[in-house]
């Protein structure tokens, strides 16, 4: 039987603040010596008190506004009790009953339709430290003790909790992609799953035969978008098999094992009472006045969907073009700068999404590292549009500009493209020279043995190569045919 799939996601985003949530230790911990970004507050030395980071409140509010949530004027912190050593206090300071933002939504595109995923709430909480287990594989199993690095302990997180509106693994992936894009547009988080600054937990259930919601299973430890999709696909299959064989689903937390491609039971699912939430009496409530909220609203940048709409209207681009160009706001800004420098918008869009991305990929660079200034690309694209340069030589020039610091003029000189396009007499002269250098090939063609035209194409290729892509392929083919026709008369 077909059961309805119900998925809700909890996405943790590390906020791009300079300091931790409740102390002034730096959040720049990756690659640092363990336990160097620590102080009495994040090590829970008795007698210390937490003091809330204003920057974290601002970023969480901005994310909340991006998700069209209501920012709460009054929210509070609680203690979530917890029995691992990665938080020195033995509890996590988090928001439980009154979170900072509630009731929003995020629209996603899936199967060429728009789906609205409602956001239940967004709250602030502190990250845990890192446990290192002194075993060969770094796993807890078999470890006699644990080693703790508290550099990450206390780094601010915002947790975005969706309603269970997601129906497929693809939708789940798309939701995370859009959420990450929003966080990056807002400069709230870098959203890197590999480094752990974006972490996803999924709650998934299959509906019962009567249509009511089934038992929910939580899945953790999915460290990439691919892992998220695979874990959900596996879990759907596993739950279907259990139910088909007359079994029942146990409410539990399962860990995704990426190497084996399976989820494994970790523990029975906690309920709120297991965490013994308790009001955090060391912290005053977060009071965000209307004036402060208006300030956050005024400071909101253009959001991804707003940029998509503007690009489509202003530059006359297709949905696919807009989608690629606006995927990263830095790439969108680069394209806008190319267009503003006078490049034809359609051709510039094509060059940025195809050639610029190709070169960046080859060089393993981000657009922020790209050596080609927008003005240079605009001039290059304009020359191609005006047929002063062929696309082939244009790509060669772009490759040069991206690898060495030089001006467009220098690149034109270096590639021999300064002379401009080759056509007419100059092209005819080149073709005659190449024909004279290939007498056997010419004879084969003349004698009618080149039935499939492969030899003619070979000659054309030699001409194009010699012309460094500056010859028009159609003109070249036309002139070659004309010369052969003349020589066989």
């Amino acid at each position, binding site marked *: 039987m077909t059961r309805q799939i119900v998925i809700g996601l909890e996405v943790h985003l590390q906020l791009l603040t300079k300091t931790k949530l409740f102390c002034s230790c730096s959040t720049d911990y990756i690659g640092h010596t363990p336990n160097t970004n620590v102080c009495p507050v994040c090590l829970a030395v008795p007698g210390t008190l937490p003091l809330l980071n204003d920057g974290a409140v601002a970023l969480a509010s901005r994310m909340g506004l991006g998700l069209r949530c209501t920012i709460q004027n009054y929210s509070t912190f609680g203690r979530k009790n917890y*029995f691992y050593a990665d938080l020195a206090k033995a509890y996590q300071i988090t928001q439980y009953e009154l979170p900072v933002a509630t009731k929003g939504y995020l629209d996603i595109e899936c199967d060429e339709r728009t789906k609205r995923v409602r956001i239940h709430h967004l709250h602030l909480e502190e990250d845990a430290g890192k446990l290192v287990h002194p075993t060969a594989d770094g796993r807890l199993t078999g470890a006699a003790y644990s080693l703790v690095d508290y550099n990450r302990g206390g780094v601010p997180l915002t947790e975005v909790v969706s309603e269970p509106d997601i129906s497929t693994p693809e939708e789940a992936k798309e939701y995370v992609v859009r959420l990450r894009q929003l966080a990056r547009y807002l400069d709230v988080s870098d959203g890197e799953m590999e480094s752990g600054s974006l972490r996803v937990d999924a709650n998934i259930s299959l509906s019962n035969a009567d249509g009511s919601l089934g038992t929910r299973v939580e899945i953790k430890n999915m460290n990439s978008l691919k892992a998220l999709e695979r874990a959900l696909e596996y879990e759907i299959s596993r739950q279907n098999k259990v139910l088909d064989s007359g079994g029942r689903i146990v409410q539990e937390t399962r860990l995704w094992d990426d190497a084996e491609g399976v989820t494994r039971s970790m523990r029975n699912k906690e309920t709120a009472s297991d965490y013994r939430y308790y009001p955090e009496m060391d912290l005053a409530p977060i009071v965000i006045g209307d004036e402060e909220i208006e300030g956050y609203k005024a400071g909101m940048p253009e959001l991804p969907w707003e940029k998509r709409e503007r690009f489509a209207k202003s530059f006359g681009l297709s949905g696919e073009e807009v989608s690629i160009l606006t995927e990263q706001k830095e790439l969108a800004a680069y394209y806008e700068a190319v267009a503003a420098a006078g490049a034809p918008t359609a051709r510039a869009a094509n060059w940025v999404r195809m050639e610029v991305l190709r070169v960046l990929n080859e060089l393993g660079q981000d657009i922020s590292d790209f050596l080609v200034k927008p003005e240079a690309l605009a001039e290059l694209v304009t020359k191609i549009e005006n047929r002063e340069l062929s696309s082939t030589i244009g790509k060669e020039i772009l490759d040069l500009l991206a690898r060495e610091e030089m001006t467009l003029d220098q690149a034109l000189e270096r590639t021999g493209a300064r002379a401009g396009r080759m056509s007419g007499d100059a092209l005819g002269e080149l073709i005659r020279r190449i024909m004279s250098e290939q007498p056997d090939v010419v004879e084969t063609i003349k004698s009618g043995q080149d039935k499939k035209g492969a030899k003619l194409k070979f000659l054309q290729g030699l001409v194009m190569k010699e012309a460094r892509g500056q010859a028009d392929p159609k003109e070249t083919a036309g002139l070659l045919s004309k010369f052969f026709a003349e020589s066989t008369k």
Partner: protein
Amino acid sequence: MKMTVDHDITLKMAKAAQLRVEPENVGQMMNSINDILDFCALVGDLDCEGVPDFTWRMKKRPSRRPDVPENWPDRELFESKAPTFEGEFFKTPRIIAEG
């Protein structure tokens, strides 16, 4: 309203508190918790009609701080005070209990 706990709730509380309680001791623990709850319930009998909230003046702390990093200079102190330290890490029992 007076609250009480029964045998099952007592076991649940013990589990949540990560306490191992032998079956023969559950009754004693349940009675102790109920004694505490009885004592707390006495507070409810107090007549607080017209009694103002208990407040006192104190220097107001800011509720938020600016996002400016500061280094804690005395890291060695943590290392010297930690019960066990190995290399650059705090060393702890591998886990206290499975939830």
